[in-house]
Each structure stands twice: as C-alpha cells, then as structure tokens.
C-alpha cells in the first residue's frame, strides 16, 4: 500500500470517529449525568480517549476541554493512550494479595520479557494491577482479555499466556 492509500485510510478513520463522537453525544443529549457515560461509550469503541476525540467531544457537548480532561485524568479507568493487544489485569484485592498476587505479577512480567527477548511474542501484553474484581473465593485471580483465571499458583501463572495466539 502506498503512503497516499494509508493517509486516505487514516483520514477516513478520523472522519468515522468524529461522526461517532457526535452520534454518541447526541444519544445522551437529553440524559442527566451523561459525561462519564459518554466517555465510557467512546473508550469501549476506540479503546482509549485520544486528545482529538476529547476536543471533538467538547464541541459536541459544549463542555470545556479542561473539564473533560479533568474527568478523564481523575478516573483510572479512562486511558489517554492505546491499550496493548492483550490486557492482563492482576487482581490486587486483599485476598489475592495475601495469596501471592505480587509474585504473580512479577512472574508474568518476567515471562513477557523473556518472550520478547526470544522474539517469540508477536503480540503486545499489557499488565496492570486492578482493584478487587470480587472473585475472592478464587484468589489469586487474573483477568486476561475479559476472561478470569482463578486459583492460580504463582509458579504456574505464566501458563495462562500460552492461551493466546501470537505467543
């Protein structure tokens, strides 16, 4: 594909996003307490909230960009940068913590580093600690791409990475 083709595609994508931002803002126009719900809807579709999108949202809703940024940066759920291909959430609730969540996180990071070094991982794994996911009966637990893996043994935890293609 030539550079022009890529540029066209990008312009098309940006136009599409702009249209969706206005559509989403329109859906919530008559609703009370909508800003955070709009941000959720945008992040669900795009994966994060780029600056340009926040700017577009300011135009669509009449809420100042500063106010929108204030909200995005306050809430840890909202992201200003794109996520990795695979998201791994290590639960750091108390029950998981007591049963070795920190060492699970360390083992996962170590394994991902090893895979990268060996050139074996085509995909990008993003490992984050999260607040209690409410599966304390299954502690320690990890959520990868929306699926929960429970009762993990810290030693064996990197096994879950093998469930994904590109590894």
């Amino acid at each position, binding site marked *: 594909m030539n550079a022009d083709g890529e540029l066209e595609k990008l312009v098309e994508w940006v136009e599409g996003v702009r249209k969706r931002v206005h559509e989403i803002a329109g859906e919530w126009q008559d609703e009370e307490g909508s800003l955070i719900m709009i941000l959720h809807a945008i992040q669900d579709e795009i994966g994060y909230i780029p600056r340009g999108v926040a700017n577009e949202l300011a135009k669509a809703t009449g809420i100042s960009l500063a106010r929108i940024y204030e*909200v995005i940066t306050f809430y840890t759920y909202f992201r200003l940068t794109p996520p990795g291909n695979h998201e791994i959430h290590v639960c750091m609730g*108390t029950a998981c913590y007591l049963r070795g969540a920190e060492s699970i996180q360390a083992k996962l990071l170590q394994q991902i580093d090893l895979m990268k070094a060996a050139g074996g991982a085509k995909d990008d794994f993003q490992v984050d600690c999260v*607040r209690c996911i409410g599966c304390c009966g299954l502690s320690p637990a990890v959520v990868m791409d929306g699926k929960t893996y429970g009762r993990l043994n810290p030693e064996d935890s990197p096994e879950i990475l093998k469930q994904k293609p590109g590894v």
Partner: protein
Amino acid sequence: MDKQPLTARELDTFVQEASVAERWIRVGMDTGGIAAGAQEVYDALIEARDSSGLDIDIQQTGSIGLSYADPVVLVGGNDLPTLVLGDMDADSARELFAGYFRDGRLLDDRVIATKDRGTDFDGTQQQVILVKDTGDGDSHHRTTIFQNLIREDLEARGLDQKIAVVRALDMGLYHRGVCVQMLPSRVTYASVTGADIRRLVDESLRNGIVLDDLLVPGGDPQERISMRNCGSIDPSELESYLRAGGYQGLKRALVDMNPEQVIEELKTSGLRGRGGAGYPTWLKWKNTRGQESDRRIVICNADEGDPGAFMDRSILEGDPHSVLEGMLIAAYAIGADTGFFYIRVEYPLAVKRVQKAIKQCREAGLLGENILGTGFSFDAKVRFGAGAFVCGEETALIASIEGRRGSPEPRPPYPSIKGLWGKPTSINNVETLATVSAILEKDGNWYAGFGTEESRGTKVFAVTGKVRNPQLVEVPMGTPIRTIIEDICGGAGHGSPIKAVQTGGPSGGVIPVDKMDTPVTYEALLELGSIMGSGGMLVMDESDSMVDVAKFYLGFCVEESCGKCAPCRVGGFQMLSLLKKIHAGDGVVSDLDTLRDICVCMQTASLCGLGQTAPNPVLSTLKYFEHEYLDLVTTPETVTSNGKGRKHG
C-alpha cells in the same frame, strides 16, 4: 409475558401458580462461578439433557455464596432434599446427569452436606450416605476406607442396592473425625469409628434408630434475607422473581400504605445502612422526604470498592430485581421520581443484569407512569463508576454522576438535604435495598426479630483470605465471629493457625484471634477499634505479617485519595513511607510514635470518610500487634515476611 402493564392483582397470580419442576438443576452463574467454569458446566448439562430426552428443568442462577466450591450446581429430585454439588466441570456434569437422573448415582467428592441437619428418620428409607473424614492428615485415604467399610456392611445386609455411599466434598463439620450424613433424613453423625459402622447399618439404616452418642444436632447459623433468592431464581427473568414473591413488598407499600407508614415500617424493622456507616435507613428517608423540593432522587450505591467485599456484586448478579424493588419502595417513601444505580464498571455482569431488570420492569409497567395502577410514577437508570474508590463516598458519588471529578464535599449539608443537582437525595447501599424489599414483603417486626437490640436483622459477610472455605455468609447480627469463621467457613485453611480477622476493609481494623467470640454488631466492632464496614472479613494466619497488611491497606487509601485535603493527601503518603521503611527493617522505635501522631491528625482533620478511616488498619495493628512492629525496628536480625533474612549494619 404480554406487554400490558401489570396490575396488583396479576402480581399475585405468579405466586399462586408458582410450581417447582419435579426434577431440576440450577447452575450458579455469577462472575465467580463463570470464572471457575460454570458456563462449560451449564453447556454440558444442556447437551446431556437434549440428547437424553429426559424432562429436567435446567436453570441459570446467581451464586448461593459458596465461592470455595465454584462452580456450584444445585440438584432437586429423586425424593431427596436439594443437593449442593461443588467443584464441578463439564465431565462431572455429564456424569452427574447420566448417573443421577437415570439410576440415582451420585458423584464422589462433589456433594456438600447441609448444615440444616436432621434429628430423626421419620420412618423413611435412607437412600444416600455421605461420608468424609474431617480430621487432619490424609483424610481422603481414610474417607475412602470408611466408604468401603460401610459399603461392605451394607452388602452383607443386602442393602447395597438401596443405599449409595458417597464421599462428600465438605461435611459442614471440621475436626470431628469421620462424619456421615444420611439422606433424605439429614441425620448426621460425627466421630464415627470402625466399630460404629455395624450400629450405623443395623440400628440406624435398618431399624431407624438414631444413635444419640454420635448425633450432631441441626442448626444452620445462617439466615438468608438479603440473599434470599441468590442461587434459587433465574436473575435474568422477571417472572422467576415474581414467582418467588417478588414485587409483593412494593405492592403492599403502594396499595396498602402511605409513604409515612412505609417509613414507620422501616423504623420498626430497625434496619441500618449496610454500606458501612450504619445510619438508620428510616431516618435517612424521613430526612429526605422532609425537604421542600420540586424533586427528590434515590441512588443505589453499587460502587462496591472495598477489596475483599463482593456481597453487593453477588446480590446484583443473583437477584437484581430485589434491589430494584427496594429502590422503588424507597422512591415511594421519600417521594422521588428518578433513581440511579451507580455501579462499578469493573462489575460488567452486574451492570448487564441490572440493565436487563430495568428493561423488564419498564415493559411490565413496574417502572414508568402509574405503577400498578396506583398513580405512582418512577424511572430508574444506570450510571457507571470509572475506577475511583473514593466515589463510594456519597458526596463524591454525586459529583461523579454529575460528570465531575469524584472529590468529596464537606458534610453537612448531607445529600438528604442537598444531593444530586442540589435536590434532596437518599443514597442507599445494594444490600440495604435488597433487605428493604424483604421487609416490606413480610413486615418490620419480623425483621426486627433477628439480631440484637441495637443491630437488628442480618448481615452478609464476605469471608476470604487464609480460611478453609472462603464464601459469602449471611447471619443474624450478634453471631460471634468465631461461629462465622470456624463453624461456617471451616477455620484455618492453609496449614497455619489463624492470627486475626480484618473487618471493614481499608477503613476497618484487625481483631486478634483471642477476641473472636465477639458478636458482630456495629457497636461491638467499634469497641474493638474496627468497623462493620460493608462486610469484608479477611482471615489472616500466623504466616501473615500485620505490618504488611497495614501497609497494603494504607497503600490502597493513598492511591485512592482524591488529593483534595492535605491531611489525607500528605498524611497518608508520610505514613506509607514510614510503614515501608519499618517493613524493610530500617525503622526506629520513635517511628511508631510518629505513626500514631499522623493517625490522629488524619482522623480528626480529613474531609471525608476515606481519610478519616484510612489510619484504622494502622492503629488497630499497632494496638494488638505492636510487638510485630517492635520486632522489625529493634531486632538486629529479622526475618521479614518474604522469608529473607536481613542483617543490620
């Protein structure tokens, strides 16, 4: 269901026509169950049924709370009491289906014996003997030996075709030797020896005589009110809730009572807010109703952020309509026209089930204009949290719904005076609202019959950590902590004795093991320097460092502090630095005094509950386990919690 609005009379027909299928299976499909493989279990059961041609009702339900045994299925039929099976997978689901419904065979190591034990046989022929060695050591081996011994004896008496001997997953009894439970009578024996087997077979099974010297009398210490339908109804079907008596409480409120009478009923019940603070629900409603305003609002606080607490998630996932009904009743009592569910976005299944419940109620006319033909109008909406713990604080929650940063505001004015968009607002917790619908369905006096003088009713606790069987427990207030931890959850579960129980999450404190006979009430826990909180109960054993635990909770609060007021922002950070220093073995004795000073400052001067209560885990560990801090700051050579030896210069 047709799309005509339901009338009050039609509601009753669901209850009257409710009938239970003769043979049924329910699969607990909450987040915990699904994570452990409940979907695979469900799919395998459906496939097995469809290929068998048997008429068996298979239903998805929420969790009955037995997290340790997920995925859990409940089975009814064959003239036996409801059987609870845990640790299921697709293979065992297929085996259960083929075996149990064809020739009554049960799986080994799956059945959880009931604590609601029987005391006589009532002349019934027993069909199943559950057996398990509950002692320490190689209990599986001993269990199998006893299973075989009982089988041999039954064979010798020609009873082996009539009575199955099955190894149990859990007997509900611990450190009581070999235990057996006979079904359908539920008569249970403990400390059974090899010599007792002949008596068991000859006297009990052949002649129906109860062996009093072995008998363990009944009595499940649990009482399910908030969780009454969790695990027994299909949470995604309105009709399933209606058949269980759902919206009868709302009907009673709307048809038979005026708002003041509803508030009076709540006063009689003695219900106090289950989110943590324990403010009387009736008073909150009365204050909100008492405000002159063109509009009032009700909010369900479903921002369950305490690590280790998952009762609200379980209720929303297992019985969303009970909470919605509670919200409708609250709205009628205070005169609100709009309600908001503020739900953590980390709980996607709870969100989905509440949204579905709202949609169903709009279609059935239980939300909208002129509900049940009474002229009362109300609508409910869902708003998401976005990963901020402080938004569980009510003024921060309001800011979040209004589309602002979740920074708390000073109170007063309380939200009941000036809440969402400045309107009088009643904010109630999930468990509170689920209880409200139960109270209105029965009555206030009934509810007040549970619990203690000051703390009425029941409370759900999420028992986790170093305990044998982590689970949700609902007990009457005043139940000793020991009963919850040892009798219900099986006590220590990781090879080391229990050291302490932490209640109330990051806002609570630790209770040392020698104070475990304390009854759980708001007052008793406060007296010990902890709080009821939302009901998290974290069990810690001798291998856990109290300094580490205090550091964990404080670290949580420091990260979640909104940064608005200095005592919380600066004080928390300084305390955490000190704790890290002490934990690393670099602390000095005077650090403990500094810690105490900062604690008092934060408690006194912080703006909201987060900062005011953040020192609690530090203060209570200092109160009961100061020696662990001192060991770290005075001993020249210490073994830190990660087991690494460390030397001072």
